[in-house]
């Protein structure tokens, strides 16, 4: 069950710094478009800046960048939001965990913060550590009431299954808004949007990307994704909702690889929570960016016809 005390701590700002995720911008633009437009509909003005680079989490945990190299990059990104006095809203589990972990680490480690600030002063920036980082799913759960009021296209009769992703709930063991084993805030958002929740056994399993395992140990990663997708296929939902573009890209693309390797016929469309909320709030279809999806496209069109374009 969601930790309501944690949810209450999330403010309802009138402006928020939207952190663009690399996978979302270049592989699934629908996530980026829907996240900022849905926040605007829910009454929060999204602010973004093209100074903001990648959060650096991928290159760090892939051991290309040592923590001393990526901590200044994180501080730099966070200082962009602090200059405008805003909190940061991310769409990706990896960004959330990475920005939070290193931000928390710097706030509790004065000498590290001093050396990071030395580097940032060279660029005329300074990391104070005042802003905090929220996930878009947390914001949707916090704005439940506004979400309920603004639903224009209720997802009547659409069977939706959830996949929470590991980094947000695993990395945020004490800071996420729900416990790691039986989260239910995505289910509540689906019910608010009118969809019908479909449970399946491997709900809390990892999507199989293994962060860099899909590049280095592809066979192990495919093996795990296969068990996940088999379990999803049993429940046969219309849509599988994820909250991280990296899970999105893995589950989406690997279904196609399984299909033409006749490993089974996987046609489950994968949607990010921002796209699902965008669909519920009635954003026009081009903004949802379904053209960038790889598998389950026919079923996606069928869902759109059922709930009205």
């Amino acid at each position: 069950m969601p930790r309501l005390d944690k949810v209450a701590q999330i403010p309802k700002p009138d402006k928020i710094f939207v952190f663009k995720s690399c996978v979302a911008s270049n592989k699934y633009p629908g996530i980026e478009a829907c996240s900022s437009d849905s926040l605007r509909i829910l009454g929060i003005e999204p602010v973004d800046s093209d100074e903001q680079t990648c959060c650096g989490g991928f290159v760090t945990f892939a051991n290309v960048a040592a923590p001393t190299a990526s901590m200044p990059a994180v501080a730099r990104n966070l200082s962009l939001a602090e200059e405008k006095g805003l909190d940061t809203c991310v769409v990706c589990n990896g960004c959330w965990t990475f920005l939070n972990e290193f931000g928390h680490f710097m706030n509790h480690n004065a000498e590290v913060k001093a050396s990071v600030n030395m580097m940032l002063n060279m660029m005329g920036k300074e990391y104070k550590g005042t802003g905090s980082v929220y996930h878009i799913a947390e914001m949707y759960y916090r704005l439940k009431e506004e979400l309920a009021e603004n639903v224009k296209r209720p997802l009547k009769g659409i069977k939706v299954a959830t996949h929470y992703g590991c980094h947000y709930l695993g990395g945020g063991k004490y800071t996420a808004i729900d416990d790691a084993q039986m989260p239910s805030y995505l289910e509540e958002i689906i019910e608010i949007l009118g969809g019908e929740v479909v449970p399946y056994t491997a709900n809390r399993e990892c999507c199989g990307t293994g962060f860099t395992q899909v590049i280095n140990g592809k066979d192990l990663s495919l093996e795990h994704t296969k068990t996940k997708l088999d379990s999803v296929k049993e429940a046969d939902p219309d849509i599988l909702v994820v909250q991280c573009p990296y899970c999105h890209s893995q589950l989406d693309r690997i279904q196609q690889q399984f299909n033409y390797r006749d490993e089974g016929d996987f046609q489950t469309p994968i949607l990010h929570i921002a796209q699902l909320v965008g669909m519920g709030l009635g954003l026009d279809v081009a903004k949802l960016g379904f053209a960038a999806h790889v598998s389950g496209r026919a079923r996606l069109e069928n869902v759109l016809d059922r709930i009205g374009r």
Partner: protein
Amino acid sequence: MADNYLEAYGKETSQDAGERTLKYFEDLFSMEMPLSRMMKMMPGMVKFMMSSKDTREDLFKFMPQMTPMIKQAVTGK
């Protein structure tokens, strides 16, 4: 990856491997700023300064903060 790590390391014991790893982490996470490290940072700063006009101004604004560190690094006090 060693198929058999005992053969890969030969005579070396875990203590030596541990020593080496600790020394690596020490200078990876070290906070002080010896002269050698500052020299290694110079090309990066120069490239940043050359890249555009406003980056040059920021670096000049940073210079007063830099001078005590250079003095401390050079004199090693």
